[in-house]
């Protein structure tokens, strides 16, 4: 059992969730409540990581984050290390490829808040942020939380992008999914089985939590 890899994966998933939560809330809310020119394009871009092969996305991110790229150079200048093949690079990639998993359910959650209820909040004298906290989030949270749970589970299982952007540096970028692959390559089927079982258990819990939340959301808003 590669405990550092599991620890690294949980760490990565945790950071991704923390960084994506505000993005999901504000982007999901914006997409749910506003109609604007180019909304279809923005929605398509958010969904893109869902349909793009992970290695393709990984390749583009590798190029975009590389030492020759503006982003890579900016990072190098600011923090003194490369963005690719580092934990920070993995987090950045992770945030990007989980956008659809986090934003889409949040958007659905906010869409379920009736327009008149939102307007009533303003008519009660609530400023937009107060209304978000007191009226919208209490109604939309099952969607937001579903997105976070999906994101967390998805990070643990992602293979292609992590390998492309991060490589497999032990303790830095070797996540549990990559560790399983390495174990199999080394004919350590027992180690691979152990870690696979852990990931299977986490996935089952994720599905159970997601189902319960959506059932609850359905009851609340019916």
């Amino acid at each position, binding site marked *: 059992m590669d405990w550092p890899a599991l620890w690294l994966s949980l760490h990565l998933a945790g950071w991704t969730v923390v960084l994506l939560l505000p993005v999901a809330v504000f982007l999901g809310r914006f997409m749910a409540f506003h109609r604007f020119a180019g909304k279809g394009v923005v929605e398509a871009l958010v969904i893109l990581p869902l349909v793009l092969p992970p290695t393709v996305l990984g390749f583009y991110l590798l190029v975009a984050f590389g030492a020759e790229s503006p982003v890579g150079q900016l990072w190098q200048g600011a923090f003194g290390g490369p963005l690719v093949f580092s934990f920070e690079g993995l987090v950045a990639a992770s945030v990007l490829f989980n956008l659809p998993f986090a934003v889409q359910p949040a958007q659905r959650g906010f869409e379920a808040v*009736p327009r*008149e*209820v939102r*307007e*009533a*909040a*303003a*008519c*009660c*004298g*609530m*400023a*937009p942020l107060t*209304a978000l906290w*007191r*009226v919208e989030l*209490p*109604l939309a949270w099952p969607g937001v939380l579903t997105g976070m749970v999906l994101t967390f589970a998805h990070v643990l299982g992602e293979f292609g992008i992590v390998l492309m952007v991060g490589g497999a540096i032990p303790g830095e970028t070797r996540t549990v999914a990559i560790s399983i692959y390495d174990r199999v390559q080394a004919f350590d089927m027992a180690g691979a089985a152990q870690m696979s079982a852990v990931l299977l258990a986490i996935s089952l819990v994720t599905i159970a939590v997601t189902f319960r939340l959506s059932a609850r959301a359905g009851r*609340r*808003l019916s």
Partner: protein
Amino acid sequence: MTLEVAVSSGAPIPLDVAFQVEAGELLALVGPSGAGKSTLLRAIAGLWQPDQGRVAVGGETWLDTARGTRLPTHRRRLGVVFQSYALFPQMTALANVMAAGADETRARAVLELVHLGGLEARRPAELSGGQQQRVAVARALARDPAVLLLDEPFSAVDRGTREGLYAEIERLRAHLNMPVVLVTHDMEEARRLADRIVVIDRGQVLRDGPTEDILFDPRALRGMGLREAGATLTARIDGQEGDGLTRLRSAGGPLWLPRISGTPGDLVRVRIMAHDVMLARRRPEAISALNVIPGVIESLLPGDGPGALVTLTVGDEVLLARITQRSVQAMGLAVGQSCFALVKSMAVARHQVGREDP
């Protein structure tokens, strides 16, 4: 504290309307659906921005497109009752009222005022339609608004509950010392509640005047759709009869209507549509209409088309009849004449009978 509204816009519907509402006055904006009534209300609330317009309350300007002033909705001191009530479903009745900025003492007092004492801990889903409506009214009043806006607030409840809510609003009027704007397409509602009526048609003011003037003005009625013209008689249940009819006592004598549940002595309001009323100079015999109501012609108003609207005084109430101008000529009808109104029992649908709160 006067509410001044002037709005003109090209979209979503062409709109060019101006009116004022005095403090303590209840103004009804009526008109067919799509006339722009709700859009006007949204402009007052700041939920919609017209191309050009000015909204001011007392000395405070909420909107002035000429000067670029636009106060966001949450900074306008207003109370709104929405068509769907728009209560916050996750909050109790008390929390809903407190969400409008009232402290607990004030919130409880306002809930008491709308007769919801004891139901403070219920969530909207645990309240009836009428009770939810009362919570919405309490929430709108809780912050002591400078303007109260009611957007078809009674359209989602059945006619019986509506009667109770009208009575509630009439009783609350003593506490409503701010300008009140009611949007409705129901003439009966405007008649019951409004001091003044502004008739809106295709984005223009068709008529603006005291309720009693507008109510019997055929031009205004046409703006609202003449089919809506009608009057209400109050009556008491006299007895239930074996053939499925209920006998009522009214100012115009006995009435027979399809079964109305209730016990003798119960007060009900019967809405009789103008197009369901026939007139006769003499009391007719051997006709199928069971209800023959004697009255005196109070006014005769020819419309632009073939029709005319006749107002009959029946005791201290009125009945409206929509007949042809040809009939007016042929019968020689004139103001001050007595005549008989004939109403088919079966023409009065169950939803046109409302119960008065005891």
